[in-house]
């Protein structure tokens, strides 16, 4: 009987080393992939390439962290591509065409994005639209609006100094990487150690129970969409800065990558579970895969196939390690 007791204790209290491994399986897989690449691809291990990967991962990480909050409360924000396009176009339009100072232009686009976030949240919370569809519709409306403004044309003429945000360096470290780490750290503390941060987990875990615990579920839900919109907007500013021009298509293909990153990072699509640094690792993972594929000169179409298969393997291993 005593042996049974031992088995049971360990299992119930689920805090063993094994469960830690399971929780961070994605990190282990990432390190494995990274080491294999370092050993087998000389071009991969150059500082320049590593910095490139980090830089490329940084703004998409920031955007994915926004989406992370919406997914954490059990919803989805499909409108991020539009928020990204909108930010890029209106910011550039204001700065390059209307001479608004960069600082004010940033504030204004952040405000605009926050408004879009509020609308997304309101449609979901008060309009009872499934967020998938609500945000999809908002996406189309926004797209229409900024296409009317820009006719789909890129807007160039941003000041050179603005390039620092997306392409600057502090020592050998690209500035976006530092920005990303700071954002991730703040969000980590926010989600793990503040009352409001924990509320997102509560709402995503059981919205009824959260409501009965006195959490303002409507506010938290709307706020998740606002955070998502703001971080998408910041990410967009970074991407815009890198190309020094506003472009409606700047985030066109990001949505599915962002979703993949969030899930790779161990976030549950049904809500209530996930970690900030998981998302960051997810972004690095995806970026490393894309990078080695090009370094190995894999043909474009084969890239889709190989990348897909790698993702399946990783997610399946991760999902099954988490299960029991």
């Amino acid at each position, binding site marked *: *009987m005593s042996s*049974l*007791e031992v*088995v*049971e204790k360990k*299992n*119930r*209290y*689920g*805090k063993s080393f094994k469960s830690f491994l399971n929780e961070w399986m994605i990190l282990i897989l990432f390190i494995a992939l990274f080491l294999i690449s370092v050993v087998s691809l000389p071009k991969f291990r150059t500082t320049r390439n590593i910095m490139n990967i980090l830089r490329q991962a940084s703004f998409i990480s920031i955007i994915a962290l926004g989406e992370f909050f919406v997914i954490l409360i059990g919803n989805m924000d499909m409108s991020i591509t539009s928020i990204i396009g909108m930010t890029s176009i209106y910011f550039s339009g204001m700065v390059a065409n209307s001479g608004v100072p960069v600082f004010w232009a940033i504030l204004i686009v952040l405000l605009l994005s926050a408004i879009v976030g509020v609308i997304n949240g309101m449609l979901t919370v008060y309009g009872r639209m499934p967020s998938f569809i609500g945000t999809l519709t908002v996406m189309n409306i926004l797209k229409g609006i900024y296409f009317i403004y820009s006719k789909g044309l890129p807007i160039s003429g941003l000041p050179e100094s603005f390039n620092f945000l997306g392409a600057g360096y502090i020592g050998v470290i690209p500035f976006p990487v530092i920005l990303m780490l700071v954002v991730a750290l703040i969000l980590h*503390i926010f989600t793990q*150690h*503040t*009352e409001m941060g*924990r*509320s997102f*987990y*509560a709402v995503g*875990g*059981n919205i*009824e*129970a*959260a*409501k*009965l*615990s*006195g*959490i303002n579920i409507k506010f938290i839900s709307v706020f998740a969409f606002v955070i998502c919109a703001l971080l998408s907007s910041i990410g967009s500013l970074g991407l815009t800065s890198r190309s020094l021009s506003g472009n409606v298509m700047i985030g066109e293909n990001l949505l599915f990558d962002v979703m993949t990153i969030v899930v790779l990072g161990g976030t*549950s699509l049904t809500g*209530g*579970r996930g970690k900030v640094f998981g998302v960051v690792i997810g972004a690095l993972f995806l970026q490393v895969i894309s990078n080695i594929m090009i370094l190995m000169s894999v043909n474009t179409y084969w890239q889709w196939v190989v990348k897909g298969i790698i993702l399946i393997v990783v997610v399946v291993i991760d999902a099954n390690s988490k299960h029991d």
Partner: protein
Amino acid sequence: MAAENLIEVRNCTMVFPGVKALDNVDFTLLAGECHGLVGENGAGKSTLSKCIIGDYRMSEGQLFVKGEEIHIPSYTVRKSHEMGIAIVHQEFQLMEDLNGLENIFIGRYEKRGPIIDWKKLQKKGEELLEYLQYDLDLKVKVKHLRTAEKQIIQLAKALLDNPDVIIFDELTAVLQEDGIQNIFRIIDLLKAKGIGIIYISHRLDEIFECCDRYTVLCDGKYVNSGFVKDIDKGELVKMIIGRELKNVYPPKSEQFGDLLLEIKNFTSPTSFRDVNLEVRAGEVVGISGLLGAGKTELLHAIFGNHKLVSGEVLIKGEPVKIRNPQQAIKYGLGVIPDERRLLGLNMLFNIRDNTTLASMKFFKKWKVFQNHRKEAEAALEINKRLNLRYHSLYQLVNKLSGGNQQKVVIAKWMLRNCDVFLLDEPTRGIDVGAKFEIYSLISELAKAGKGVILVSPELEEIIGLSNRVYVMYEGKIMDVVEGENITQEVIIQDLLGVVEA
């Protein structure tokens, strides 16, 4: 403390679309009393509680808290909480992916600046548990806890802010004897502090043990209230179901047929070990054991829904392999799971569809199509028998009261003509009248040559119905008691003996 009305409800009426859940109900709660709120399933107990805490807004009527009239349209859960009213809900309200500590303190964290002070929180949590005299690890995710432990988390959460009024809505339905005694102890402590308690339970013995006054509801209407010391159990039962209840347990069947089900050396990786068990036709087999003994897992393992390390199953003497519930059902097994919301019901289905879900194949037209009418008739009949409170067969089950939902789960398996029924706490949350109906159903099944395995936290139930009782402790069968020997003393001794050893 002088008797003050902590809560006063006057002429409360609560209407849901199609149902009048409360009809002109009056209710008062005094400081320092424990007030038993009783009535059949669907009588309106939970609804009344939810009106008091502001989860529902009563359609008509007045509510006074500590003598102050409440403005109903602006009354919310948060307001009631601020006024010192707490509740343990009938259905769990927990975040399964968060740990016990956070489930208790969510929304009320201890903070240093904006940052949560986890150390202080942990200390406060431990103090609470000590007060409750309950030992459990608050760092474990709630989904890994036992049912009873989850209930303790809910209790701790309710007690957190030192409320003046606390409502226990079937708090004890998932607890066993020792746990219940502990609750009584806590209730005494609370009463001594002048806290008023509304105590809802279908186990009437508890009402007599810990309540000062009682109120009976029937069909949403106020029936009676008074001092518990002035009545006896028979009278209370009569007030609740409107008739007397004699002979709670029908006579046991004595005629056993062939072996229907044999379990040999069942061992699970985590929950039980070397379990041997057999059921004959016409036999009711009880499994008794403390919380977390592994009874639920054993039933699920038999049903092909739990991992096994080793073990053999014989159905009518034939060795078979059961890999999933579907196969189990093919071999004539049926299970009534313990957690109705998680495992028993599809909340998006109406009563009819839930009732016939496991037996759809019996209601076919031209072998392919479902005969909706026949399904409805069958569902109607079996649910009538169980005295289900509902207003339409096409009503979604999530609008039913807890006990009535449980009845639908039972009805579902009664429709499916199984050979062996695995019943896991089938009467959880069921009122006295319907309990009797379920007992006679079980006894009829046995008489018809079926086998029944019965798990129940109520020893009395096991003793009253079983022909043989397996006593289980920490995943092992410690003793088998048969026939005349099945008495409270023997079984308790078995359990205690083990515990002390």
